[in-house]
């Protein structure tokens, strides 16, 4: 997958906070990227977000070599869902076991690239955007009180700019024994750029400016990542800010399993019986 995707990532503590509780995980070979924004006192947020990225990356890394084209997105989707479940359980358990980590949790945005498609998931207010044909689109719906208020028409999107509710998320990984993540998928096109970010970016930088930076600097993805983070800091940098940019360089249809692979699988299935 590494040949078909170009990936740039950056995380920064910001201007105000003492610690960076965001974590990033990337495995270009397996075609997986994970971003998590942790919460909880005593630096527990760092622990939670780190557990989320490591658990999900590990789950996909193990499973990715066996992905093939026969059933499209089903395998990666299952693997992603299982990785999220596993991460949730691990964080939840660690939070129960250690009083200093009680109630720790993390938001999540993650994606697997497979067979000319993206399979993505999120929990909380970390976001996934797609830039295609010079237009930025938000693919995820924040699990946040503010988003609920806007959806219900209690306040307008413009009024939401003035709300103090930005820090209130309605769903996070690790809080309860089970979590419902939002999973979705779509076909990708060469030239698409996907952006995963923590709320430290989109709380401070307008979508129009995010779009402009990715369009203008898309030819130099590390520079684009650096400019996004810098823009958030220039606008206050009140939170940790993290970005992962993934550009689709070329089509990446999954190979059909070879006769040898099919035979091996058949033998394995037969053997298990």
């Amino acid at each position, binding site marked *: 997958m590494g040949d078909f995707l170009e990936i740039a990532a950056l995380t920064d503590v910001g201007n105000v906070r003492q610690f960076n509780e965001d974590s990033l995980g990337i495995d270009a070979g397996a075609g997986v990227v994970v971003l998590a924004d942790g919460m909880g006192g005593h630096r527990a947020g760092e622990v939670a977000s780190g557990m989320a990225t490591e658990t999900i990356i590990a789950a996909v890394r193990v499973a990715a070599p066996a992905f093939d084209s026969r059933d499209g997105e089903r395998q990666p989707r299952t693997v992603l869902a299982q990785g999220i479940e596993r991460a949730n359980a691990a964080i939840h358990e660690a939070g129960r076991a250690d009083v200093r980590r009680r109630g720790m949790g993390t938001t999540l945005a993650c994606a697997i690239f497979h067979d000319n498609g993206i399979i993505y998931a999120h929990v909380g207010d970390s976001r996934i955007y797609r830039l295609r044909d010079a237009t930025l689109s938000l693919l995820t719906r924040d699990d946040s009180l503010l988003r609920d208020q806007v959806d219900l028409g209690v306040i307008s999107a413009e*009024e939401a700019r003035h709300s103090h509710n930005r820090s209130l998320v309605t769903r996070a990984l690790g809080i309860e024994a089970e979590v419902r993540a939002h999973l979705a998928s779509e076909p990708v096109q060469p030239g698409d750029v996907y952006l995963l970010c923590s709320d430290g970016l989109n709380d401070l930088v307008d979508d129009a400016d995010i779009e402009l*930076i990715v369009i203008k600097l898309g030819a130099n993805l590390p520079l684009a990542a650096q400019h996004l983070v810098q823009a958030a800091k220039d*606008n206050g940098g009140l939170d940790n800010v993290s970005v992962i940019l993934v550009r689709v360089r070329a089509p990446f249809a999954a190979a059909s399993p070879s006769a040898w692979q099919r035979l091996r699988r058949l033998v394995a299935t037969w053997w298990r019986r």
Partner: protein
Amino acid sequence: MAKLVLSRDGAIAAQRFLDATPLTIGRDPASDIVVDDARIAAVQARVVAVGHDYILEAVVGGSITVNGSPCARRILQHGDVADLADYRLKYVDARASSPIDLERTMLIPGLARVVGEEGAAPPPAVPSSRSANTRFPMGRIEWLAGAHRGSQRTLDRVVDTFGTPGIGVVVVTRRPHGFFATHVEGEDFPRVNGRSLGTEPCALASGDVIEVAGETLRFTQL
């Protein structure tokens, strides 16, 4: 704890902490904040709490003037003043009086959704809270040579790029403390005042001349 302070001619008429909401505001003596003026409705407005916000809303169909502008609803900000006939109602929030909001991320229950869980057409996303108190300078680029000779462009966005993709492109970045030039792509590294740009951004000063992919540009900070 946030509170509302009702005053008339500079004298405090009533104070009310926002510990229990909703609160009603009106002429009715049963109101939480009684505004004793014939021009005020029995119930003129109310204050509801949602998360960390207190929202002042006029009764259905009505309007209320906050900071001189009529509105149906306002997410109260520290220092807001509502006009109620001869009275002024001021919102004071000690916690939010600091210019930056350092509230840490917290988990709370979501609001009941009317639409299906995974709705078909997403409403507009929540925009940034980008503060207006960061001042960004303005700049201008003039073409001194090349195909666009004589034309100008205002630098009023976070980034703008110049040059030719594949050959040489420079980005001019607008930051609070000035403008910076950085090489983006191409074999042809842009030059500022004759010196080739390295990988680091170069601070621009008025009058600087940028050369990129056969174009010559002059930068001016306005």
